[in-house]
């Protein structure tokens, strides 16, 4: 049905961004396009519907049945009607001033009535027809994504391209939306190209998975066959996904970071990060070799063993009760009041109590809106709680503003933070060395700042030469490690980590998580680890609390909570984790 041949994308200066991508999608087939940031997967999708950013040009061919999609002028007959695009961010892709009904009516062919709108909404699982009269801001992220899906399907396209449709959603919502996509696609016998960075999602939802790296396809395989990858990059990705079922002694990432596509046009793009690379790998770009029902771009395929190592270690015993309490949070409440004509209240924390022992690691898990970030901000003194008490190292730090300045300085040295977004957590105006030195001086001792900066960088696995760099010259994972070094410079006893790897590609997550585990185990720094990712929590923490709507609904040893959850919400959360297993053969439509 869709036949893409040798698709390329160039920027205004003819630098290659996507190189020679070829694949086919049959009717009723789901093809997953998987890759990390910079792999070119979104550009590939946008090229197919001619929505590339203005200065970019596409080449090659993409035929949908008998229609060429690339380089067309009369797109209106094709876009929406035959091929539709579902975008990532449900919060910005709907017009805030138009109701759900308006969105659908303008997309539906011919004169649409209320009955048709209701029918379309019902198809995407919205049974309440009153939703048609609502505005986007009145809907949750999952609901918006459903409305956007209904709008994308309005003209009954034969092919739907979904670009990271569930990335901005919570895991439980993600599961529902994926199931919905799958059901609609089966019913309509529609082709689906699902673009995602998450290999687990792709395997679960797709018949076939295409792996992209630095602008090129490196492997194509049926989901079921991915247990035995045929390209070292795929193997590395599979290994990088942390396990939710057991604790790994070493978290394996892929060393280095993704190169720019234009820098690797005449060689194997993965050679620099590959454990099996040999000199011949860098001599020319290896083509995608067809191996029957799969294909790989590794010239050494068959000659190397890519099966993942089986590694597991017993989960650490929780030690919190045996040690002195470092952080004690008692009955914490935070209510946000809006200012304006209609005063509304929002309870972010509804009485949260927890404690962290010296050197212990505690996970706080929950979905967006559960209050976990508010909890972190209160502990860090970035927001004052409405009521309750926070004690840190014997010091009452409920309100940092009311502390005497000597006590405030003491508290600031006890607790430090690693923030979620590595792109905004470092000052772009200063070098890494400046940032670290500034933090070191807060320790208040006489020390050789320069050599301390070097040893901090060494601690987080970065070369000393990075001290002279500015954040713009660092990748996301490197920035996050600098942010950890900045926090460790103060020698805190508690490190608050607010989603420290959520913004990172999976292949570099492991490096950051390893640094945090090292800080916890070797330096004895306690962790308050906030995450939505249960697998990450399993790898890093001893104990866990589960938050839901501002309350703690379950707590216990991390392994116990994940292996045998008792609260219904925790059960749902655990079940929503996309597992590494592919979806069952029975549903699959294997087509040529």
């Amino acid at each position: 049905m869709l036949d893409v041949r040798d698709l390329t994308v160039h920027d205004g200066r003819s630098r290659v961004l996507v190189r020679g991508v070829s694949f086919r999608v049959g009717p009723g087939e789901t093809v997953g396009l998987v890759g990390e940031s910079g792999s070119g997967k979104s550009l590939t999708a946008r090229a197919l519907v001619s929505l590339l950013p203005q200065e970019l040009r596409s080449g090659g061919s993409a035929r949908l049945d008998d229609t060429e999609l690339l380089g067309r002028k009369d797109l209106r007959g094709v876009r929406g009607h035959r091929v539709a695009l579902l975008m990532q961010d449900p919060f910005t892709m709907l017009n805030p001033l138009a109701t759900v009904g308006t969105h659908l009516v303008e997309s539906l062919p011919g004169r649409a009535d209320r009955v048709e709108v209701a029918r379309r909404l019902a198809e995407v699982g919205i049974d309440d027809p009153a939703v048609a009269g609502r505005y986007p801001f009145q809907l949750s992220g999952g609901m918006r994504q459903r409305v956007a899906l209904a709008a994308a399907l309005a003209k009954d396209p034969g092919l739907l391209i979904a670009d990271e449709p569930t990335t901005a959603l919570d895991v439980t919502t993600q599961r529902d939306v994926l199931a919905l996509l799958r059901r609609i696609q089966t019913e309509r016998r529609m082709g689906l190209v699902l673009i995602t960075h998450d290999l687990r999602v792709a395997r679960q939802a797709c018949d076939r998975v295409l792996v992209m790296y630095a602008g090129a396809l490196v492997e194509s395989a049926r989901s079921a066959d991915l247990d035995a990858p045929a390209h070292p990059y795929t193997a590395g990705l599979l290994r990088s996904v942390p396990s939710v079922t057991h604790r790994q002694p070493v978290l394996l990432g892929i060393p280095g970071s993704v190169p720019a596509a234009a820098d690797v046009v005449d060689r194997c793009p993965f050679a620099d990060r590959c454990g099996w690379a040999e000199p011949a790998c860098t001599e020319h770009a290896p083509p995608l070799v067809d191996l029957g029902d799969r294909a790989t771009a590794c010239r050494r395929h068959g000659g190397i063993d890519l099966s993942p190592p089986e590694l597991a270690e017993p989960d650490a015993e929780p030690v919190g009760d045996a040690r002195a309490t470092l952080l004690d949070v008692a009955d914490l409440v935070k209510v946000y009041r809006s200012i304006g004509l209609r005063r509304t209240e929002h309870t972010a924390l509804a009485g949260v109590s927890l404690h962290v022992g010296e050197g212990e690691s505690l996970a706080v898990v929950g979905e967006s809106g559960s209050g976990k970030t508010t909890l972190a901000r209160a502990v860090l003194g970035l927001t004052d709680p409405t009521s309750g008490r926070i004690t840190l190292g014997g010091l009452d730090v409920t309100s940092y503003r009311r502390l005497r300045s000597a006590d405030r300085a003491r508290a600031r040295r006890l607790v430090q933070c690693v923030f979620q977004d590595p792109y905004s957590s470092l000052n772009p105006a200063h070098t890494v060395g400046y940032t670290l030195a500034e933090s070191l001086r807060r320790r208040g001792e006489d020390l050789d700042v320069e050599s301390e900066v070097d040893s901090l960088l060494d601690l987080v696995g970065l070369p000393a030469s990075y001290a002279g760099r500015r954040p713009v010259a660092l990748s996301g994972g490197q920035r996050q490690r600098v942010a950890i070094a900045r926090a460790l410079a103060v020698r805190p006893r508690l490190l608050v980590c607010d989603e420290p790897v959520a913004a990172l590609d999976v292949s570099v997550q492991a490096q950051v998580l390893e640094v945090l585990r090292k800080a916890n185990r070797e330096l004895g720094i306690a962790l308050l680890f906030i995450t939505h990712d249960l697998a990450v929590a399993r790898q890093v923490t001893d104990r866990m609390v589960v938050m839901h709507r501002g309350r703690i609904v379950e707590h216990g040893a991390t392994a116990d909570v994940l292996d045998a959850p008792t609260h219904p919400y925790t059960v749902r959360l655990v079940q929503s984790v996309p597992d590494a297993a592919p979806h069952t053969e029975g549903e699959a439509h294997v087509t040529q």
Partner: protein
Amino acid sequence: MIVRALSAFALGLVVIAALLGDWIAPFDPGAQDLAGTAMPPDAAHWLGTDELGRDVLSRLIAGTRTALLGPALVALGVAVLSTAIGLLAGYRGGWVDSAIMRAVDLVYAIPPLLVAIVVVGVFGGGYPLAIGVLIALSVPADTRMVRSAVLAQRNLAYVEAARTVGLGRGRILFAHLLPNVLPTVVANLLLSFVGALVGLAALAFLGLGVGTGAPDWGRMLAENKGLVDLNPAAMIGPAVLITVVAASVTLLGDRLYDLMSARGRDAGRA
């Protein structure tokens, strides 16, 4: 590209003229030649003479000093004051912010040039007074822009990280926020320069600002407007110079802002 090069070239010439005025001017700008008044351009007087027989070119060259110095003082004064107040208002928030911003709103309601004319006119003119009034009236608008630049930065994680590390307010303001709002400050600085150049010229045109007899572009425009038939160059010369300098500074300022804000920023986040 070519426009920017021309702008830089034109500005360079004006600055050189300001520095070397006495040496390169063909005549004494104040010397009158009552036998040769309002002469059109010739080999001796390239831009002719005005109605007192003074050489127009020499007066234009002498006028570069007030044309550059006044606006530069205004721009610097506005930049320093608006940055300090804007940083304070944006970072402190609360009642401090409210008080400052209401005062800003108040000044906003006043038409600046009109007030300048009234104040300078009532107090008998004078170049320093004109400069002071222009500073006072330009600070609010720039304060507002600096404040909004600070608001965009203050909730970014790096500022919260600086607070968590335990840095003091002064250090966060000047070592962390200031470098990141500097592109806005510099862009405003150059726009204030242009505004002050035109504003001071307008005041001089109305006979306020620089003293009588002083060679000043705005004043020349006023003095020579009657010569439009006899020696049009005497009027067109200062008008063209004011326009060229204002346009050049604006163009180069745009470029400078782009360069400064590109530094340290991400080319693209995937």
